[in-house]
């Protein structure tokens, strides 16, 4: 953990936080959940808000060469992610890019699985709609998005690393997701069977395309 904190500081990516404290808990939960949903090594995975490749260290190792694709808005994570993979001695090919505009089509791939861990928690309602719009285009038929969220009573803002203003959404209730389900012709399921509770207590849901 302390090595990961050092790397965050060296790459000017962040001060010590829950990221490092929950590194293994979250990474293992993500991996376990996707496997339970049917992900195998041949599948292609889109990791939305991949951070400094915390889950990447698990997923890149597991998936076949080149099947991991990560997107992130916080630029310092790009280089930090490379250094963390070096630290974990992971040398498989992967793709990661900084993206602020849901430009997932530029990968030129169709994905079997997508994961958005603590990402919807930092998106406005409009952005969630945009996310589904673009995922509808890049996910394979029957592809699955696994995501976590919090159903706040009101929106509040996050000042990420005192650099990035972000808005957390509110009223992410069943009616909200059912409306999206109808709009994008997808299948929404809250708390899918068989998954462990999320380590932070966030709600967990899937969308099948």
């Amino acid at each position, binding site marked *: 953990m302390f090595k990961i904190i050092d790397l965050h500081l*060296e790459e000017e990516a962040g001060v010590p*936080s829950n990221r490092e404290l929950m590194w293994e808990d979250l990474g293992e939960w993500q991996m376990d959940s996707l496997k339970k949903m049917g992900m195998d090594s041949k599948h292609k995975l889109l990791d939305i808000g991949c951070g400094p490749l915390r889950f990447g260290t698990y997923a890149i190792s597991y998936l076949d060469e080149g099947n991991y694709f990560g997107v992130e808005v916080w630029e310092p994570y790009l280089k930090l992610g490379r250094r963390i993979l070096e630290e974990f001695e992971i040398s498989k090919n992967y793709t990661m890019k900084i993206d602020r505009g849901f430009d997932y089509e530029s990968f030129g791939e169709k994905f079997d699985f997508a994961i958005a861990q603590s990402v919807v928690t930092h998106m406005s309602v409009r952005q969630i709609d945009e996310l589904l719009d673009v995922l509808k285009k890049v996910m394979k038929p029957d592809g699955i998005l696994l995501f976590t969220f919090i159903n706040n009573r009101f929106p509040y803002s996050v000042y990420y690393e005192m650099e990035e203003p972000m808005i957390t959404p509110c009223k992410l209730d069943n009616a909200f997701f059912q409306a999206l389900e109808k709009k994008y012709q997808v299948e929404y399921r809250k708390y899918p069977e068989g998954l462990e509770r999320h380590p932070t207590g966030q709600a967990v849901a899937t969308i099948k395309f």
Partner: protein
Amino acid sequence: MKSINHRNFCLNKKEVWDVRRKIYHSQGEGFLLFKGFLEKKFTDHLVNYWCRLLDPPQTHLLFPGKEHAFYPGCPCYYKHGRTTGLKVFYNPLWGNQHEVVSNEIAVSIIHLRSQIEGKAFTREISPRPGQRCVVPRLIITRNGENVLAPHSDYGLDEPNPRNIDLARVQATLFLSQIDKDYSGSGFVFTKNNGDKIHCERELGIEPGDLLIWRYNNVHEISDISSREDQVGFVRMLFPPEEISHKAGSISIIEKTKYLLRSMKRKLV
């Protein structure tokens, strides 16, 4: 790094990361000293006000103990150790309206600290029940052994996981000088490499210097002594305190003592 002081406390991006590496990185010291954070006229003012002029019962209530002491609109408190001469003043920013200079200085330090921690400055300056809020504290230690037992705060050994926060730093604003105003161990801090440092002597700390240090490193004050003609070890700290919903239970005895003292002063 440009001179950082209570009038000029905004760090640029490079400075922020330089400071963070010194404090948090395993190869860093775990602390950073801002020499001359306060000009002499301000340290003189604070020492004069808090150590010489103030009659605490006129401005502060007796400290009822940490549980439920701090709530929105709570008063300032003081604690007085009759045998050791220890005085502690708890000065919530909303309550300490009688000493505006202390408030201004406290705000500059809380702001500087928030930049280092990467947390929003406004997060912990207003009291919100259930959350933490900084309550600046002024401490005068005159004599004592094991003044502050070795311990760490917000570290991985916190019994309540909610209290673990490895980004937390504390700030000590030194207002008196070791071997002139007091003697003894002074503030002893364990660096990131595990070595101990006797801060005042080894860093040449003078009144007005600000030490920012990693809260989850072990720190202690083993002994302090001062003569009658010395002011003692005077410093300001900025602990984030838990805010409760309503006034705590100040005991009837304490309330009575306070009322009697106030009446006596009016009569005399």
